[in-house]
């Protein structure tokens, strides 16, 4: 592995996770169960893509090779993406999307809340904006997970299936490697492991109200944040990148 700049790598991880999740949420546009949810999920997607734009723009500045946020978003291959795998899994049914939003947004709002104290002024500023948006997402998702879990027999079963499917992937959000360690030591990133207990408490409280339960901890896949992904990411990128790949100089 060639020598990586931990700050550049960190910006990609934050930006790619936001971008890929934003793309998944955008897949609900015109297809959500109700028009209100269609608008809500499209707004969520916009928030994520807005955050991705800020992180990737900064990544380009850190790298210093003239790549802007569009170059990074549209002209990298799947193995160059650094998103957590939970973001790239297919959107599934509405329950699956809402459970993922609950797990991720609750984590992200806690992470960004702490990242506002980052020693890196750019990341602290982005966190200040993202924190507020993620708190809204977490609340919206929590309310829906309760409605679905404590709803009909079918909605309960679908929500429980979603929890069982997604739970193993949530752990990657709290794992740290050498890149994270370097950033935590210099105060650039908060240590996610330090608030995992608090996060778990909030998730369990929502699931209890939703009459849902967590599966036993079993396998915990990881690797997305260092470029090893599920097969789903390449298909997502093929769709997201098709226009700039076909017409590299296209402008709106």
């Amino acid at each position, binding site marked *: 592995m060639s020598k990586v700049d931990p700050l550049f790598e960190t910006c990609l991880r934050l930006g790619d996770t936001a971008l890929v999740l934003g793309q998944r949420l955008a897949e609900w546009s015109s297809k959500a169960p109700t028009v209100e949810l269609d*608008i809500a999920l499209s707004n969520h*997607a*916009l928030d*994520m893509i807005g*955050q991705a734009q*800020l992180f990737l723009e900064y990544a380009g500045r850190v790298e210093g090779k003239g790549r802007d946020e569009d170059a990074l978003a549209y002209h990298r291959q799947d193995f160059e993406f650094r998103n957590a795998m939970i973001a790239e899994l297919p959107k599934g049914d509405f329950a699956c999307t809402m459970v993922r939003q609950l797990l991720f947004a609750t984590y992200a709002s806690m992470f960004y809340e702490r990242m506002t104290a980052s020693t890196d002024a750019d990341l602290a500023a*982005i966190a200040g904006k993202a924190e507020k948006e993620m708190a*809204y997402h977490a*609340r919206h998702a929590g309310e829906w997970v309760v409605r679905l879990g404590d709803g009909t027999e079918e909605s309960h079963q679908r929500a429980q299936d979603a929890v069982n499917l997604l739970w193993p992937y949530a752990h990657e959000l709290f794992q740290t490697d050498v890149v994270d360690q370097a950033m935590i030591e210099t105060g650039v990133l908060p240590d996610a492991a330090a608030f995992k207990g608090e996060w778990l408490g909030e998730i369990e409280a929502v699931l209890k109200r939703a009459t849902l339960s967590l599966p036993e901890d079993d396998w915990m896949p990881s690797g997305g944040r260092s470029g090893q992904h599920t097969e789903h990411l390449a298909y997502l990128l093929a769709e997201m990148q098709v226009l700039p790949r076909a017409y590299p100089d296209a402008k709106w």
Partner: protein
Amino acid sequence: MVIQTASHRTERARAVWDVLHQVMDPEIPVISVVDLGIVREVHDEAGALEVIVTPTYTGCPATKQIEFDIRQALDKAGFEDADMQISLSPAWTTDWITQQGREQLKAFGIAPPEGKTGKRALFAGDANVACPRCASRDTEQISEFGSTACKSLWRCRTCREPFDYFKCI
């Protein structure tokens, strides 16, 4: 809540504020970018003009349009030399919407944000918002997301009208 320093109070800085007061939000054309709290500072130091603006939501599609409109208004008023800077920190909050801005929102049929922004809380929805038409508090939220990311959708049980509420963030 805009910070007033000596460099804000020159003749030219005041003239720039006047120009910016005429730049309306593209989505809600009754409220100016100043009353929305998007224009943070205007400096006039050693002959150099600097305008500092901040985006609302990170993904707000109106952001580029707002920056374009501000630039165009400055150029048209003869402030081509004014430098426009985008600043993310401190993050924009609805607390920065001026009293006049709140009145303008209400007159337009949008309930202005109520109270101060709070900390993250699950299941802590907004208390019943006052209807911008009849002022009744017998209202209910229909959807947490309305026509834009910054608004939620409500209904008044008294006058039966649906309305947008500008969310506190």
